[in-house]
């Protein structure tokens, strides 16, 4: 269950960012922003010509005291960043991977919409509902 989900475009501006409504959402925005550096470092570490061999799932980008940040890059350099609660120890790597896969599928669905211009903010309700299903249910 994610605390914050963000979709970052190739040019490193956010296409979609949504966090659990807490008192300090700016903190999540900041964490996502700093994670972009780590993402760039990871994708460049493997070399420029190895795009095919690079895995889309980047894994744990960096842990903080309360949260862990996971990353995922598509072939078109669109990045998905997910912040999860560090106390949620039951969350396995496979679950994170499946969540990213779902994100990627929904993102592809959004792209399939001809009225969506790549680079616009994502306003698809289907995408929203999918992200809602992944977020922590704050009652």
């Amino acid at each position: 269950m994610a605390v914050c989900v963000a979709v970052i475009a190739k040019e490193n501006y956010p296409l979609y960012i949504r966090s659990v409504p807490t008192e300090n959402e700016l903190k999540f925005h900041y964490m996502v922003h700093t994670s972009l550096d780590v993402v760039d470092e990871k994708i460049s570490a493997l070399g420029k010509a190895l795009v095919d061999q690079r895995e889309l799932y980047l894994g744990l980008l960096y842990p903080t005291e309360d949260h862990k940040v996971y990353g995922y890059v598509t072939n078109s350099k669109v990045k998905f960043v997910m912040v999860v609660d560090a106390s949620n120890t039951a969350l396995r790597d496979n679950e994170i991977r499946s969540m990213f896969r779902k994100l990627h599928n929904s993102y592809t669905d959004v792209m399939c919409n001809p009225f969506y211009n790549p680079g616009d903010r994502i306003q698809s309700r289907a995408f929203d509902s999918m992200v809602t299903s992944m977020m922590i249910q704050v009652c």
Partner: protein
Amino acid sequence: MEVAGGGGSGSPLLLSDAEQQCYSELFARCAGAAGGGPSGPPEAARAVPGAATAAAGPVADLFRASQLPAETLHQITELCGAKRVGYFGPTQFYVALKLIAAAQSGLPVRIESIKCELPLPRFMMSKNDGEVRFGNPAELHGTKAQIPYLTTEKNSFKRTDDGDKQQETQSPTMSPLASPPSSPPHYQRVPLSHGYSKLWSSAEQMHPAPYEARQPLVPPEGTSSGGPGTKPPRLQASLIRSFSVEREPQDSNSNYPDEPWRITEEQREYYVNQFRSLQPDPSSFISGSVAKNFFTKSKLSIPELSYIWELSDADCDGALTLPEFCAAFHLIVARKNGYPLPEALPPTLQPEYLQAAFPKSKWECAAFDSYSESMPASQQPRDLHRSETSVKDMADFPVPIQDVTLDDKQASKNIKDEASPKDVSEDSATPKDSSSLKARPRSRSYSSTSIEEAMKRSEDPPTPPPRPQKTHSRASSLDLNKVFQPSAPAAKSGSLPQPPALPPRPCPSQVSQHSVNSESSAQPKPPAQPYGDFRLQEQSEQTSEAEVHPQSSRGPSQAAESSPAKKDIPYSQPPSKPIRRKFRPENQAPENQELPPTVGGPASAPTMKPHPAVQKQSSKQKKAIQTAIRKNKEANAVLARLNSELQQQLKEVHQERIALENQLEQLRPVTVL
């Protein structure tokens, strides 16, 4: 059957057997309708573990069909606890049905009233005059539309008949009590066909269709649980509602009246014709871009169009099949007429329903031939066909995602079967079931738009790429024309136009001078490209190759040195000329060394002077200048050629370097991060 415990009241709810059966049937139908039905608000769809929920939409319609006034229904909904918990679980549903029965019997809507024995609730389902008991098969006749639905009702309710007969006698007497609020709609139900057409024309301002035309809409098979079957009664209930005062939906849970989301026969024809105008083959897709252009003409805002697309493209492949297209078109029409867009695709607009209602054979009628002739846009769909077939092979990018998608969708399918249906997720999941089959068209159409453009581009004969400058046959002198023009952007305005005919070959002495001059002058000149000079230049290159290397400052000769290393073979020189020329450079070598590299053509003129001025000065000078210019142009060409070759060499070296780096990376142990 379980006894529904503690609804909103906290006291156990005792149901007789008949009531149990009746209620469970109703509940199953409402829950079944949720399978393809419109979703209520998300909270209404929250799953109760271990139990199904009835979607708010069909439930609300059912309640309205009970002919109770709106306030009563509100009270009932509140009392049964559905509002509080946000959904219609079995307990809430049963309590609500009990309350409806109580209300219809004239009892006040209270929890206490359901404790006593009550008749079954009545729901107005049929079109006939007079009220028809929900479970009474005897009166269910007349309307063909109801038959498929009601036959199932007949079967299910026959068992309850015996138990109900007693209460039946009460019902006619009770009915007048419940009917006063319903009498106006009752009255208006009679001229239903007329009323429907009025409604449709007022609402849609499109083809008013007689109600009878909608009979074939109802599919003969009641396979999709109660979904299609509930539609005619819901349609009636909604029609009634729309004629009554409250036109807007009363509460947030109630869905929209169903009729705006039904496609009439004439509308269907219209949509199909429009589809054919975009895509002659009714069984194929309309690509995203084509559809986008078409729907943009409707002048709806882009976010709305985007949302409509999202609703109607059930398999999310970026293309619209005919049912999807009709659904999208219908939504646009509805939106333009003021209907707010639904949260999810209404069941009447879902592709499976549309395909079942309008069998494909009807679409691919003879009109297809007539349309295929006169399609102005037929070329585009043909390109689409071509591109689709070609893209199948070329679908590289979507393929990995497609595989992942297939796995994920199958996994989600399995998960979905276990969990209780959520309306929203179900709407997306059920199309995704079919999309797992259609995943290939997803890949096809995703890249088809780009490939289509590529195909179109390739349709135009591509401008032939500039011939490689390596080949140096005589015919390639024509290429020099192309080469020189782009490579000499700073062409002098006074550059000589391309000679239509071969210029006379200058005499060897002049040639030697000019070759010297051209070689000595490092600056490229925009030359004319006479055929003869090219040969001469080749000769000069050959000679420079043959002789001792002249000064390094002579760029062209350097170019000639390195390039001939590669161009030996391509050079197809008549052997006589180099032989002839060989001797000259030897004479000229010292001269070249003497002469500093001069700049420009005018410089060549003074260099000519120290030469033995045997020739006539003025006219010869002009000719010499001209030939010098030509020479410079050729030198320029040579330089450009050399440049391109060096660039290619550089690229190759780069690639080699990258390959080596890759190998190095692979050999290096992978760092674990």
